[in-house]
């Protein structure tokens, strides 16, 4: 088991955005997290990646208790994430965005930066090579030298994915990776996600497009009003009465 949440709860004021969620993800799976708008999906992702602290409960990742760990330390133990609203390095080019994301592979000492030591140069050379590979991997070679802020939305999202891969995540959290994309962009992104998964990463993704989730995921977790209401294979979840009720309202649960 790669990730496990136990009784995970987070309040905003008096409202439980995530309430008592027990969830686990095995290594190598693609797990889909679905639920109606406002169900608490992004909150759950923010809790797992450390951008929010839970009100109670705990999160175990790969043997570490990461419940109260700072976000940048999550990256170091192998939790990568992509965002719903893309936080690019807007003034960097596509390529620089990826290179900057290889922070954990770099020699970041004051000494190395100042004196351009052999160790520093070797690491930077490795990073340039890997960044080229990542660029190739997500198919952004043609826009290598465009500024991040000038890229179309779909390219920005895929760039976010390429940059997230720079931390070499064991678990990759994707918050609506194809949200707002047209069909071509979505195909590009889905291809990239499948390749990431084939490369050995475990994936937890939030997505609104149910058919995409059904087609892509090994397992699906459904939450509503912050609570987990169903879990299982796509087939199991599809037939679950409570899921149908959550999505379509009570009358359809026949």
């Amino acid at each position, binding site marked *: 088991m790669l990730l496990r949440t136990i009784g995970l709860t987070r309040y905003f004021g008096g409202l439980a955005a995530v309430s008592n969620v027990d969830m686990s993800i095995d290594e190598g799976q693609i797990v889909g997290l679905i639920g109606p708008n406002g169900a608490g999906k992004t909150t759950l992702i923010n809790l797992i990646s450390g951008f929010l602290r839970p009100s109670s409960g705990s999160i175990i990742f790969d043997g570490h208790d990461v419940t109260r760990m700072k976000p940048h330390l999550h990256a170091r133990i192998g939790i990568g994430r992509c965002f719903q609203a893309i936080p690019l*390095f807007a003034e960097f080019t596509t390529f620089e965005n990826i290179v900057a994301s290889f922070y954990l592979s770099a020699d970041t000492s004051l000494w190395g930066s100042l004196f351009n030591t052999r160790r520093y140069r070797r690491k930077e050379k490795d990073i340039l090579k890997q960044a080229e590979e990542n660029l190739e991997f997500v198919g952004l070679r043609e826009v290598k030298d465009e500024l991040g802020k000038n890229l179309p939305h779909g390219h920005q999202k895929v760039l976010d994915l390429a940059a997230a891969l*720079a931390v070499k995540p064991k678990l990759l959290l994707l918050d609506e990776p194809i949200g707002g994309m047209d069909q071509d962009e979505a195909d590009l992104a889905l291809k990239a996600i499948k390749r990431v998964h084939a490369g050995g990463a475990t994936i937890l993704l939030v997505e609104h497009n149910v058919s995409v989730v059904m087609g892509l995921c090994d397992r699906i977790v459904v939450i509503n009003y912050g609570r987990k209401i169903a879990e299982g294979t796509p087939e199991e979840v599809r037939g679950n009465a409570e899921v149908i009720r959550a999505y379509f309202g009570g009358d359809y649960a026949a």
Partner: protein
Amino acid sequence: MKRNRVSGFGIVGVIVLLSLAPLFLESYYLHLAILVFIYVMMTSSLRTIYISGQMSLGHAASMAIGAYTSAMLAKHLGWPMWFTMPLGGLAAMIVGVLVGLPFSRLRAIYFSMASLFFGMMVTTLVALAPEWTGHYAGLPAIPRLFGFSKVPYYYFFLALVLLTLLILYRLEHSRLGMTVKSVAQSYLAASSRGINERGIRILSLGIGGFFAGIAGAGYAHYAGFIAPESFGVMPSIFLLVYLLAGGKGSFAGPIVGTAVLYLIPYAMAGFEGYAPFFQAAALFAVLYLIPDGIVGLPRQIMSWVRRLRDRKKAEYAA
């Protein structure tokens, strides 16, 4: 590659000219040049903090800490200046880091406000130990580095500013600089890539503080007299104006901005009272006309010319 070589020749040319300057200039101009060197250190170190996404309105406080530390140790304890000056830089660096610990939680305007009030507070500290600091009246008779002639000072500060710029340039154009700039652009992306974004911003405050402290210490042992008003809110704001006017986006920006704006009052002998108007005009020009600052001026003029030409062409065509 070619452009690099051209600007490389340009830089070497400027350094040669600056090293020969004492042969031609009288001591009054050397004095101005020395002050420009000191303030270039200030503005460039302010930019080191700026590129991490923190707009400090209290940078002169770091200068004060360096100046007072070095001046008091040299004057009251008789410590040698080659030792007290680095200590001044170190003290400013430590204070920068200590202040950064809480301040790095703040962003944008909230950081600026906190730094503003911190800057105001630092200069009032002179009241705590008047016999050491000279109170608000200032600290006189600080040991000087060299004798009466400006020439050794000139070379000393030229070397100091060049060394400072070299170090800051190397840092900015390295992995560390890239990381600092990435933090400014998106702390969310930065921290999800494993970057301790608060740590990076604290580091910027420490590095910026160090060079400002060195500049302050140098200033104290050049002028022989320091007073709190030299390091208050207005000097801090002026540093920011130099940076913005010169061009915050480029390494040369603070250098050019300081050289031009600092000298405006001196260039207007007899009309010094109007200098603030000209400095304000320079700032407004930047805000409205040349967003890339004075260093962006050539390119901006090119684009104006091009636009004018295109308009003419369109008129002929019509």
